[in-house]
Each structure stands twice: as C-alpha cells, then as structure tokens.
C-alpha cells in the first residue's frame, strides 16, 4: 500500500519538476508568441481607428472586408476580388514554389545521399550554407541576377540571343523564382534526412527482379522517402505562403502577396482590424496544411511495418 503511494509521489514529483522546467520557456513564448495571437483575434473584431489603430467597438467589418467589398460609388456589395486575387496569387505562387522546389530538390537530395561517404559531407556542407544565410541576402542576390542590367540579361544580350533586356524583375515570375531560390535548401535537407535511411539493398533487390529504373524509383524509393518529401513540402509551402520580404523586394509593390497585403493594412491602409482578420486567415490556412501533414505522416507510420 505505502509502496504504491511512494511510487506515485515520486512520479508526481517528477512530473512537477518537468512542468517547472518547461515553465519559463512557456511563459516567454506566451508573452511574445502565443498570447499576441489571441490579441490579433480580438483586434479583428474591432473597428478601425481613423488614422490607424483601433477604437474599442465591436464590429465584424474587418472580417467582412476580407471577403466582401462595397463599391464606393454605387454601394453595391460584391466579392472582394482584390483580396481574393491576392490570396489566389499567394496560394498559386506557394504551390508552384513547392512543386518547383520538389522537382529540383528531390534529385539534389538523392544525389547527395548517393555520394560516397567522404564527399557526402562536403555536399551537405554546401547545401547547408545557403540555408544559414540571411533571407534578405539571398533575395537581394537573386534580384541582382535578374534585373535589366543584371547577369542574365547582360549575358543573353552579349550572346546576341536578345536585343532588349527581358523584364524579369517585378513580375509574378520573379517572385516565384525568388521564393524557389530562397526555400530550396529547406526542401533538400528533409528529403536528404529521409534518404539517408534508405537501404540501397532494397534498390538492388528491385533491379535483381528486372525492374526498370523508373519502377524502382516509383515503387521502392519514393514510398520510403515520402515522409521527407512531405516534410520538405511543408517547410517550403508554409513560409512561402506568408512570405513578406521576397515579394516586397522582387514584386515592385504591384504584385502583392498575402504577407504584403497584411502589412499594408498596418501602414498606409490604416485598417488594423482587416489586417488582423487577414493574418488570422493566413494562420488558419497554414494550420489546415499542417493538419494535413500530420494526418498523412501518421497514416504513413501506421501503414509501413
């Protein structure tokens, strides 16, 4: 009887100790990460102040403005295609970035994973450096390359392929290119981590059974590295959906993504409730994507023995 209570108290003490250890981190995070999110939600239900800020009056105008707009001249209410087109652009560009990163990242990760031990570290090192480089620097670097007097245009003109510089900057294309460039390492590293665990004897067995390269890839390799593919996709999709710096620098202020639209509301737009509502919308979309990831990852875990 007493032995059991002793064990119980020991466990309780351990649990309490664990809780206490985690507490400071949780407090800091609550103050400067989770807590503020609640504030954003609250602000989305307030009224916009005349010149920024909010007035403490309940209103659903912020949320309404996300989806609907009232034409200023004939007072008709219609779908806010301004916001929806920006949302669509963000989703479109993020998905395209993810796919592009996947198309480029998978072979790269495969390549690194199939290198002999000695050189493999070198390649890993090379792919990790961009990952640890400042996002702004990388965006700036790609801007330099694609501007009218940048390397690509100057080279193409020198080679006589074109006579006028191709306008690459300040288009949707430049944002796509910029985001792929910036987030590519985030795709490669998880896929590589998954691939490291790939036992190539399975691949060999596949070839022994006269499978073609394509079948081996599709039936043996891909299913095993799937967790890495999904992780990489999430790591690219989520940041690119909420991207702010890259579209701002490469988009020229004309091609807004969701992140820029949100920022606009807190600056020139002077509509904090709308900005808050948009931020929460972004958060919800991201959460849905993450939920999807968790669901798929769990299914994988159950399926493969």
């Amino acid at each position, binding site marked *: 009887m007493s032995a059991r209570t002793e064990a119980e108290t020991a466990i309780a003490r351990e649990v309490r100790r664990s809780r206490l250890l985690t507490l400071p981190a949780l407090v800091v995070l609550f103050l400067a990460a989770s807590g503020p999110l609640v504030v954003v939600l609250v602000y989305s239900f307030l009224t916009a*102040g*005349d*010149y*920024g*800020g909010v007035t403490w009056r309940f209103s659903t105008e912020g949320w309404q403005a996300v989806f609907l707009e009232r034409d*200023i*001249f004939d007072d008709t209410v219609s779908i806010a*295609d*301004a*916001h929806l*087109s*920006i949302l669509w652009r963000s989703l479109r560009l993020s998905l395209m970035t993810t796919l592009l990163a996947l198309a480029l990242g998978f072979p790269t990760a495969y390549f690194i994973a199939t290198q002999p031990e000695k050189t493999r570290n070198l390649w890993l090192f090379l792919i990790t450096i961009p990952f640890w480089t400042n996002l702004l620097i990388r965006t700036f670097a790609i801007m330099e390359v694609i*501007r*009218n*007097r940048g390397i690509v245009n100057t080279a193409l003109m020198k080679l006589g392929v074109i006579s006028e510089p191709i*306008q690459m*900057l*300040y288009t949707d294309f430049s944002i796509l290119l910029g985001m792929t460039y910036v987030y590519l390492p985030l795709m490669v590293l998880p896929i590589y981590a998954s691939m490291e665990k790939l036992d190539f004897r399975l691949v060999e067995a596949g070839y022994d059974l006269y499978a073609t390269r394509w079948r081996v890839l599709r039936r043996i390799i891909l299913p095993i590295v799937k967790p890495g593919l999904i992780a990489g996709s999430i790591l690219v999709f989520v940041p690119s959906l909420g991207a702010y710096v890259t579209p701002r620098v490469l*988009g*020229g*202020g*004309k091609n*807004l993504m969701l992140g820029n*639209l949100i920022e*606009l509301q*807190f*600056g*020139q*737009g*002077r509509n904090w409730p709308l900005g808050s509502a948009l931020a929460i919308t972004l958060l919800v979309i991201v959460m849905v994507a993450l939920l999807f990831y968790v669901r798929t990852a769990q299914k994988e875990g159950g399926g493969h023995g």
Partner: protein
Amino acid sequence: MKRMMIAALLATGASPALAAGELNLFNWGNYTSPELIEKFEKEFDVEVTVTDYDSNDTALAKVKAGGHGYDIVVPSATHMPIWIAEGLLIESRPDEMENFRHVAEEWRDPDWDPGRRYSVPWQWGSVGVIVDTSLYDGDIDTSGIVFDPPEALVGKVNVAPEMNDVINSALYYVGGEPCTTDKAMLKKARDVLVEAKPKWLSMDYGVIEKFAGRDLGASLYWNGAAFRSREKNEDVRFGYPKEGYALWMDSAAIIKDAKNVDNARAFLDFIMIPENAAMISAFARYANGIAGSEEFMPEDMLNAPEVMIPEEHAAAGHFIETCSPAVQKLYTAIWTDIQK
C-alpha cells in the same frame, strides 16, 4: 570581447555615445542631408538618429501606434492638418523662434499650419512625370505618360505609392479638382487608375537607382528625385503635366510625446538658417522655404528645370489643400481598389 569591439569601433570614429543629448528624426527616406546632421551634432553636442519612412500614411500609422521614440517628424502639407487635429504635435511656436525671420514670406502662413505654430519648412517641390527620353521622345509634359502610357513605355512605368499625389494627379487628368466631392469625377479617376495599372511595372519608391540602371522608362514621382536621376542617367527628363500637377511642401514638427523636446526645438531653429536650409536642398535637390538660402545652394540647382519651374508650366501647378475626412475615406477606398 564586446567591449574591445566597441572600443575598436569608437577608435575608428564612431559617433560618441557620450554626447550630451539625443535627437531622433523621423523623416522621408533619402531626404536628410548627412552633412546637416553632422553640423548639428557638432554644434549642439547631440547624437542624432534618422529613421526612414516611405509615405505620409506609414509615418502617421507608426506615430499613432505609440511607443515610437521619435522626436521630429516631417509630414507633407496635405497631412499636416491631420497631425494637428489628432493632437500628435507640440505647438512649438517656430514663429517665435530666433531664426523665423529667414522664412520666406509666402511660406509664413500656410492654410495647413496657420501662423506656423507647429512646423518649419523643410523642402517643397512638385509631382510630375520622370521620363527616360532614350525610350520615348514624345511630349512628356502630360500625365498621360502614366495614365495612358504610349507604346514605348508600356510595362516600364512606375508610380509612387503615395495615395494623395496619385489620386490628385488622376483627378487633374480627368478634368476634375483635387478633394472634389463630385462622385462622378472620382469614379472616372478610379477607372483611369484601374485601367492603367496593368501597364505599370511597379508601384515603388527608390526610382533614382532604377533610372540609373535603366530599369524604368517613366515614373509619376517628385522633382528632386528626377534631378538626382538625371545626374546618373543623362537621358532623364522631368515633365510638368499640363493637365495640372500638385505642388507640395514638407515641414518639420515636434511630436507630442517626444523625449528630447529641447534638442528638437534647437533643431527646428537650426534649419531656418539659410546656410543650413541650403544644405538640405543640396542633398535631396528640392527647393526650400528659407529666403536667402539661394546664395548657399549649389550652382546646378539654380538652373535646373526640375527645381526652378519654367515659366510655361507654372500656371498648371497648384498647392493641394487637405481633403475633408469624408473625401479622405473615398480616396482610401479608391486606393484600396488599385492595390490588388
């Protein structure tokens, strides 16, 4: 280790963190003369920081949000009444300061700051069209360059993301008046803007570099930037739209919750001295509102068509008043429409 680093940096001439006071300027980007700051720092033993903003609205939003730590802000004439009405400025009475006598007659009593009780002239200029004439050599004195770009300029036009200047220019273009309550006119202006936008390249600041790098063909922008662009790319010309163009003035004022009020007042007084006003102009290449500063300004400015408005275009320039809040709301709605 950190101390060594700081010591090393101080040795290479970092500004002394031991100055008697501080002053925090909140000003337009690329608009403050470093020499002016240095002169002020030496004369008054004050350490000055300069923080940039891109637009009147951003500045207003930031200061209204509170906790900014700035002492001086430099709003445009169109926004000054808002700042005053919202109680965001200290009534520092520059008109009673020692150097007020240098302020030019025409700037002593503007509508938007009667009697100059809050602000001191910083610079003034015009909103027009900057064109790289190597791409287009037609008539540039029209805002049609931006609102209905000629073939050669389609896809190469930039528009400053400054709501009031853009909408006012559009209103002039369609034959209306700024701050009009005529909804039909406003609708026309809105439609012109929405139609023109796909032909634009960007809506951004920082055009000087872009003209220098030939990334741009034309831009709706301010005259000083045109001048600086021309210095880097000699094909750049500034057009004064004949449909009507806006004249603006920026003035410096002290923010209500400034922490360094004395230094701020000293600064306001300081910039009314002709020599110093000339420094401000020499940097950003705009005219200033201080009489007698001409003799200190650089030669090329006194002859530049961007700064000294040529006779034939003078009539089309108007100072824009501040719109009523109701019209402001309409402007904002139009602006949002364009932002997609």
